[in-house]
């Protein structure tokens, strides 16, 4: 019995070894404002992300990495479509990175980022 259990544990560990880290590749960002490496005129910036699938509008999150490297959370607006996340913010000129974490309706968590510049 001990041998059998050891064999089972061994196989389970193998599963752990072999499974990938691709859990962040489930949802796809179909379009975004700002665009990836896009240039926007400040200071008021409208953020709008569209995904290929339904995302949870209250449990997903958006944040900005500022030119100084600080992370600034953004408040999500009420969804206008089930596959959309949006926010408003005011930014000074500089290079920013918008980071998003989307929780799909089926429970998959997806992450990504959109680098952009405010002139």
């Amino acid at each position, binding site marked *: 019995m001990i041998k059998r259990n050891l064999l089972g544990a061994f196989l389970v560990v*193998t599963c*752990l070894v072999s499974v*990938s*880290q*691709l859990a962040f*590749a489930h949802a796809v960002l179909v379009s975004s404002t700002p665009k990836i490496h896009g240039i926007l005129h400040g200071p008021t910036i409208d953020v709008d992300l569209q995904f*290929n*699938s339904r995302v949870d509008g209250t449990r997903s999150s958006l*944040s900005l990495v500022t030119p100084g490297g600080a992370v600034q959370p953004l408040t999500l607006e009420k969804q206008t479509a089930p596959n959309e996340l949006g926010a408003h913010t005011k930014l000074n000129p500089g290079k920013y990175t918008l980071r998003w974490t989307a929780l799909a309706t*089926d429970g998959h968590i997806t992450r990504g980022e959109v680098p952009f510049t405010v002139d």
Partner: protein
Amino acid sequence: MIWLIQDFDLLSVLLRALALSFEAVAVGGVLVLLVVAPARLAEAAARNGVCRFVARFSLALAIVQLLTAAESALTLMGGDGSGTPGLGLREVLSASFFRADFILAVAALALYFLLRRGPGQLWAVCLTGVAIVASSTALSHAASRMDGRPLLLLLTASHHLGAAAWIGGMASLLVAIRASKDARKIHAMAQRFSTMAMVSVAVLVAAGIGMAKLYVGSWSGMYGTSYGVVILAKTYLLLLALTLGASNFWLVRETRSEAVPVLRRLRRFSEIEIGLGFTALLAAASLTSQPPAIDVGQQDILSAHEIAQRMSWKWPRLQTPRHADLPPTAPLKEHLEDSSFSGGAPNDAMNQRWSEYNHQWSGLIVLAAGLLALVSRFKGQGWARNWPLLFLGLAIFIVLRADPDAWPLGPRPFWGSFAEAEVLEHRLFAALITCFAIFEWAVETGRLKDGKAVLVFPALCAVGGALLLTHSHGTGDLRDELYAELSHTPIALLGATAGWGRWLELRWPQSDAHPERRSTIVRMASWIWPVCLMLVGLILLDYRES
């Protein structure tokens, strides 16, 4: 949270793979109790055996599903790892996916308690089965699609049911056969299962084709995206399993005349058929973590010409850049933050050459191992039976070279670098390669003859191959990742074929009274698996990233 985020992502795919496998056994077992071994036609011992068997897997499903819910909750409550605050417990508990996770776990737990009491209360057992399939479907891609959701939910549920009835059901059938004594009843059960399996394969395939049409949408998406390539891999596994299924079909026709020896052979073929089926289920788990091909932009789909060019044979360079020539190593925390959102920095030329060198040397080792395994099949070549020891060299090579930014070559510390999922994978791979090399060497040289232990190598080969289908290189470029997968998918399929081939060879009854009737399939299997290892070696030797 940033230190756990990648390992948690890894864990979520593993849990999904386990949940799909346990779901198939649990639901398949319920269908066997209903259709294959009903109370009036099967022995009580057979039905009780199936109940105990399915109850264990139901409990396992409940545990896995609770772990899945806990893992998702912790991920959401921990924030995104870059400073954004996480959700509160109440917000997580009210999420729709969490409710589906919870319903699935409760249904599986209810099935466990019902079946522990025996095969009575079938209506309640069926209800829990329906709840399991429905909640599992709610956790699939179909639930989050924007278009055609009702049809996709229906197709997904049918696909799950078909897989459960065929693959999961067969596992329960084997339990029922082992617990039965009456050869006529065994024959009748096998025949009823045969009919159920044919119907379920038809449902599985029809639903699969429908889903492929809606999720892939084009031929170029089928061969030019990761999603499509995994579907092709599943199709190959299905065809292989169907070949064995056909062998089983003919064996079932013989069970009336010589039940015991034929049933032993039936069991061995069925083990492989189940194994291939579960391999396909593990591949299905990887599909749940990939964007459907239809959503991938045209610019990220590889053309047939591009694929043919990359896969054409070129002699390996076997030259490595110096470690000092690689780009400077970023601090670990910064790297984890970046790679968790961007998927990792694109490989530069030096990184690509480093990786190609690693793959090509690994290929040489695997090719040599396969060649020696093949030579050892011939009389008087016993020395070649030491071929598994070559894998020890591969394990050392992986530890030394796979992660140049981490210990022992790079500045990132040994323990801290476990936070990188890829490093964790490589190190565990090295440990497991060491284990299975030692096990298989002991088996090949006659030092180990224990019935279960001899199966370690084929099981790891098959499971490892299956899960390699889900392996990603996180290069940060979708096309580069696809190129990498185009070489890893054939390796995964060859690994699974080699593993199950070796399994069949080892499990075939040695005391068969009629050795001249040793199945052609078994004879072929004993030659196929070393050839598969050699082919894996050749593919690795041809590995290129540019």
